[in-house]
């Protein structure tokens, strides 16, 4: 079974233990206002236009064929110009995001860094987007990796139906999931999805004997306060297999990606989270007796 993948990133240091390869699956069921991987949201391949790379060669010029071209192959840039993707942009200014890959394809790339996994205790992390949306492909990939003795992890928003989690869990060595906030209404407002199933799944997962890491992205105006983080910490503090709780400071690095995808970015003017504030929130969580890390 093939999956739709935006990128495979090697030498990842922040997606689980050791040196890892992270596979970014395309497609997400949340609409987080701060998402810094907007190219992973859409479940279909899509075009991205990097204006700074364009050499004005004219290969994407609109012509009589453009009207009948698939919508997936036409990009309207910031000036309103329609650019027709014909797969011949040598400057890689107009590119299609999303490759169909098999589990074997992923394995082949991942195995190139096996020596680094072995020394560092690393492995492969399936991320996204929301990886569990492609559960068939993800399960097949995880199985192959584990058969080769490679440590597996998933980064998930934990919205998947329980059956799907049960389907994936046996092939996972580690689960990394987000609890973005405890307040359901606020969660829905900022992510487009309620958190009831997430919290329920978290409770269930905590009883499965699998190690997991909980993360919270700290977003200005959403959850960058002691009460929000304290509430998450209270929720997870008694989970038996919690490896640690990690706070991820908001970063605006996705802004350029939104522009290249022709999308609006709601948080483009949001302030950065200061180191001091991040540490302060980490201290609040740490007071619950859990290990807290920041990134």
């Amino acid at each position, binding site marked *: 079974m093939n999956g739709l993948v935006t990128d495979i*990133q090697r*030498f990842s*240091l922040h997606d689980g233990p050791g*040196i890892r390869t992270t596979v970014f699956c395309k497609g997400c069921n949340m609409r987080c206002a701060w998402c810094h991987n907007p190219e992973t949201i859409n479940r279909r391949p899509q075009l991205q236009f990097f204006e700074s790379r364009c*050499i004005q060669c004219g290969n994407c010029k609109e012509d009589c064929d453009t009207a009948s071209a698939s919508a997936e192959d036409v990009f309207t840039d910031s000036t309103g110009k329609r650019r027709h993707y014909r797969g011949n942009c*040598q400057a890689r200014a107009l590119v299609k995001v999303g490759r169909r890959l098999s589990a074997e394809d992923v394995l082949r*790339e991942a195995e*190139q*860094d096996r020596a*680094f996994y072995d020394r560092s205790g690393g492995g492969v992390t399936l991320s996204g987007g929301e990886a569990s949306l492609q559960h068939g492909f993800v399960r097949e990939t995880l199985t192959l990796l584990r058969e080769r003795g490679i440590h597996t992890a998933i980064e998930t928003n934990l919205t998947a139906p329980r059956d799907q989690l049960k389907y994936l869990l046996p092939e996972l060595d580690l689960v990394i999931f987000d609890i973005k906030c405890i307040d359901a209404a606020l969660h829905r407002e900022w992510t487009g999805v309620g958190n009831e199933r997430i919290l329920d799944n978290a409770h269930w997962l905590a009883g499965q004997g699998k190690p997991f890491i909980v993360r919270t992205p700290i977003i200005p105006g959403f959850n960058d306060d002691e009460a929000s983080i304290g509430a998450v910490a209270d929720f997870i503090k008694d989970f038996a297999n919690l490896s640690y709780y990690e706070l991820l400071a908001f970063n605006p690095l996705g802004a350029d990606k939104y522009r290249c995808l022709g999308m609006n970015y709601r948080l483009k003017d949001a302030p950065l989270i200061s180191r001091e504030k991040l540490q302060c929130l980490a201290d609040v969580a740490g007071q619950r007796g859990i290990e807290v890390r920041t990134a």
Partner: protein
Amino acid sequence: MQSQNSTEASAFTYRFRMRKLMEKKMAVTQEKIDREGGMDEGDYGRHVAPEGFRWDFIPNHADGSFYGYMGWAVNFESLLASQPVYVNPYDALAGQTFFYLSKMKSPQLTEEDIRARRTPGVVGHIWNPDFDYSHLKPFHRKYHIVHGIGNDAHYASDLQMGLELGWGGILDKLHRFQKQHGRDKALFYECEIRTVHAIQHWIRRTIDEIDRRLEAEADPDLRANLEAMREVNAWIVEQPPRTLREACQWLAWFVLAKRTYNRCGAGGQLDELLRPYYERDLKEGRIDDDEAVFTIACLLLIDAQYYQLAGPGSDGQDMTSRISHLILDAAELMDGPCNLTIRVHDGLDQALFRRGVELLFKYRKGWPRFSGDQALVDGFMRCGYSKELARKRIAVGCNWMSLPGLEYTLNDVVKINLAKVFEVALDDLYQSGDTHSIDSLWAHFIEHLQIAAEKTADGNDFHLRHQAHNEPELVTNLLCHGPVEKGLDMTAGGAQYYNLAIDGAGIAVVADSFAAIQQRVVEQGALTWKDLRWYLENDFPGSEGEQVRLLLHNSERYGQDSGNRAEQWAVKVSRAFSKAVRDQNQRYPDYNFIPGLFSWANTLEFGDAVGATPNGRRAHEPVNHGANPLPGFRDDGAVTAMVNAIAAVQPGYGNTAPVQLELDPNIADSPEAVAKIQALIQTMFDLGCTLLNINLIDEERILEAHKDPSKFPDLVVRVTGFTSYFSMLSPRFRQLIVDRILSRRGTL
């Protein structure tokens, strides 16, 4: 003894003294920039002579320069007797370099001449014109060979021998062997003896300066330090050192002497050299760790020699000791450019390893570096040497290893521009009327590679037959096993081994070019051989040319993916290069030629000499760094992919193809991240890599410094194997570093 903690409240702490010394160093660096402009080499700590100081060399040749034993001995003697002496009352050690004699031979050199001397294939001004090698010059130009003829140093002396003998002991040894030899060796011994006397005279002049300082110095702390400094120097001017301070002062004088003579920067296994003195001082209550650290920091400050720490001894046991850690403390205290290399092996003290990684990221100044014992030892053994000897071949140079006192190597000064060889081969294919095919191009490449290697080896042989009459190694001979005993210069039969390094440069340009032709011309037919030729000759003109260039540029690239076309070509090129170099052993059985992949700072010059290449590289753009892929080799720039590629092309005979890494300093921002970097380093050596240079790119700071270098006089970057103040680099070289940053950001 002065305890750091107990005296912190008073002014005369070690930290305070080091601050004073660093202030002086910063002032000297700025003065160097103001008076001499940029230079693309290591910052060794050299001072500048006072305005108005003048020294003229004594010529002994009709061309107005000086050559040979007597020419060098007399001029070294004269320079040491004339140049200023340096004493700083805050320093534990006395002395400093002001000049490099080897660079003063042709004072009429213009900026253009100086550039030309670094340009491969161009004859420098340093060679004795009595020995003509015009028969080799056409080949040097054709293949853009850095021939090394007339180049000096670039091997290691046995510093241990110096510490054991002292200057007096060295003189005794010279006299002893002088008596055993006939008149034919008289010149050698006379010049060596005069060299030692010149150094001793320099030390005595410095002692006189200390005395003058003492007469005027009222501060009791400074007086006490000057008195101790005087006592140390008065002893070691004749006798072998007894204490750590004496040992450091002795090493300092030897280092300064060889640096003044011909810029030799090879140090040694510093922890093992100093350990007996430290342990004895400690046992006898003469020293504490704070004083040891300060004294060693002064040694590191005086000159940025290349020193190795840790690694297996000849018995395989790790050599890490307490003083290995203190040397890292000293580097931390000094906090300037230094060149320490930790040798990584299975038995390495993990605390030292971890500390090294932490310091690398904490100070972001390119130290320490790391070398890989396993590949270095296995490779050198492949040349026929024992494991014990291979372990003694330590990191004491920019990209190179050396057996202290045992071998002559021409390390890092002999290089073949593989990109130029490729260009000649492609041109040859087009001119020849042969069928245009990838196999035919490869055959032409191999043919020219073989010729380039032969002519390079011929150049090495020519150098060795005549170098003693050009520039004998009068200082380093003193601490080598053979020259004094045999009465022969290291270049003229004095050394025990002649392990001659020949490096290849530009491997990524060649591999990517073969891959692009294979993919775009042969397999896809997107371009004909004829079209390719036209676009290369015209440097991809216009919009259409740019499209073709990008088509080629976006072909599979070395470093992108294990086993892709480009990596297969890179491995093939590396093997062919190694074979071509090793084949020279049949032609010259007295030498052992060892291949490496390294470009040093010549990436610009090598690129300048080569027109547009089929990998989409425009004419005259730089070639790749060492064995690194070209910038932009992968979208994610994955270090692991780069390491896999470099591991795959290691030449495999004990010389290096270094990994040159540029990392975001923030990636090691936690204990877990430091552990991951350790694992990365260990893995790259497991995979067969030989040396790692890491440059932590504080990108914003470097970009800002590029606009106004004077605002950041203390910004240190690791350029290739050496560290340098960013502000000391020439504008063009600074631009190269900035371009690498922009490339990583995808904005170039």
